[in-house]
């Protein structure tokens, strides 16, 4: 680099190298993204559908319902935005219950789960964790321990679910997992908050038209918008401290 001209040429070569590298890299990433997107979307939709059917035993078909501020509209009305629940219908078109996605702070990171409510909203039908980073071996029992998960079948949500250390006998009591009190507490809090939010919004039993007459044929799995996959927003989830 003795004279200015070759120094300029040299810089230009450096800039050109990085520009070309960036362009080629960008192109490769876009191609990979486009190529894998359908499979990724399908996996997410399948995972959500599995979860809905798991928490609504007996349901054969599901429909997404969006809260529009005054009532539950079909998935088309609210677009992809907004808070939503899933209505599960049995083979004969009767409403099995509502699958409610919810999220809140766990021990290490946000716990995203989905739980089923009876059509009346009084009891849970089941609960499954969609996403969590709880401690392996301890906190992950919130979805690996069949006993804890089983407690969320037929659990009374009104006035609220209580976490008990020892043996809970009342219909609204859940036994905390030994060694994972905070994770257990977090799950109960998330379910309580979402139940309190959604119970008043659900239509009275019977008011909900059974199996929305027009769509009697099995509906295809709906495309899952990213916000639903992450679980509906739940206000005021406070991080749990260590106990």
């Amino acid at each position, binding site marked *: 680099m003795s004279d200015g001209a070759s120094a300029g040429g040299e810089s230009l070569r450096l800039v050109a190298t*990085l520009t070309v590298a960036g362009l080629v890299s960008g192109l490769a990433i876009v191609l990979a993204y486009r190529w894998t997107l359908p*499979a990724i979307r399908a996996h997410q939709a399948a995972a959500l559908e599995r979860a809905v059917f798991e928490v609504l035993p007996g349901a054969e078909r599901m429909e997404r319902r969006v809260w529009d501020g005054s009532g539950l509209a079909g998935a088309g009305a609210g677009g992809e935005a907004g808070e939503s629940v899933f209505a599960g219908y049995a083979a004969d078109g009767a409403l099995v219950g509502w699958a409610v996605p919810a999220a809140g702070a766990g021990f290490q990171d946000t716990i995203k789960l989905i739980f089923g409510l009876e059509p009346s909203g009084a009891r849970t039908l089941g609960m499954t964790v969609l996403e969590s980073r709880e401690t392996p*071996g301890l906190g992950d029992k919130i979805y690996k321990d069949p006993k804890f998960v089983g407690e969320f079948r037929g659990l009374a949500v009104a006035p609220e679910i209580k976490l008990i250390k020892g043996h809970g006998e009342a219909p609204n009591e859940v036994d905390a997992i030994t060694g994972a009190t905070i994770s257990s507490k977090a799950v109960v809090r998330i379910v309580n908050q979402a139940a309190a939010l959604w119970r008043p919004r659900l239509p009275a039993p019977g008011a909900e038209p059974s199996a929305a007459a027009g769509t009697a044929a099995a509906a295809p799995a709906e495309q899952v918008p990213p916000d639903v996959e992450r679980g509906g927003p739940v206000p005021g989830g406070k991080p749990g401290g260590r106990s």
Partner: protein
Amino acid sequence: MAGPGRFRAELVKGIVAENPTFVQVLGMCPALAVTNSGLNGVVMGLATTFVLVMSSLMISALRKLIPSQVRISTYIVVIATFVTVADFTLQATMPAAHHEMAAFIALIVVNCIILGRAEAFASRNPVGLSVADALGMGTGFTLALILIGGIREVLGSGALFGFRVLGASFEPWVVMVLPPGGFLVLGALLLVFAKVAELRQRAAARAAAAQEAGR
């Protein structure tokens, strides 16, 4: 230019003699973070091997075109591209495994083994040898992760690759699947590798001395 012997030597050296984990002690972050089960070790090892081989190939093929002043940034662009491709592919083909270690797949970009091989080997050797080197290093890394992950899974949950291998009476050592378990197992294995290397060296020295004396 490079005979088949040289090719084989470059391929084999990464597996034991220059194992990236136990001998070079590189790539410690994934070796500790995702090895709480054997399967995670396999997936992480294969994803890293893919990135290592592809970026070594690219970097070696382009080594005469890349100006040395911007070589590191160019390597990082190449590596990051392959990591992103691996990330998407894993998400599309193995959603469950991807779910378990999403954050760590993206972190392959900063795995020292990859940049280390690019800088130390691929940037100054022809394509064939660079790919052999990358394959060997990737295999060594994968085997190391499977070894750590397998030991931690057996001791921490009484299973191997998800199958129970220890009876119901076995009380799992939960600490093994927690972060401290990673350090304990890695430390123990480093000790074993160092001891074996030392014994080998001594044996070689003794053999040389005997040869000397016999002459």
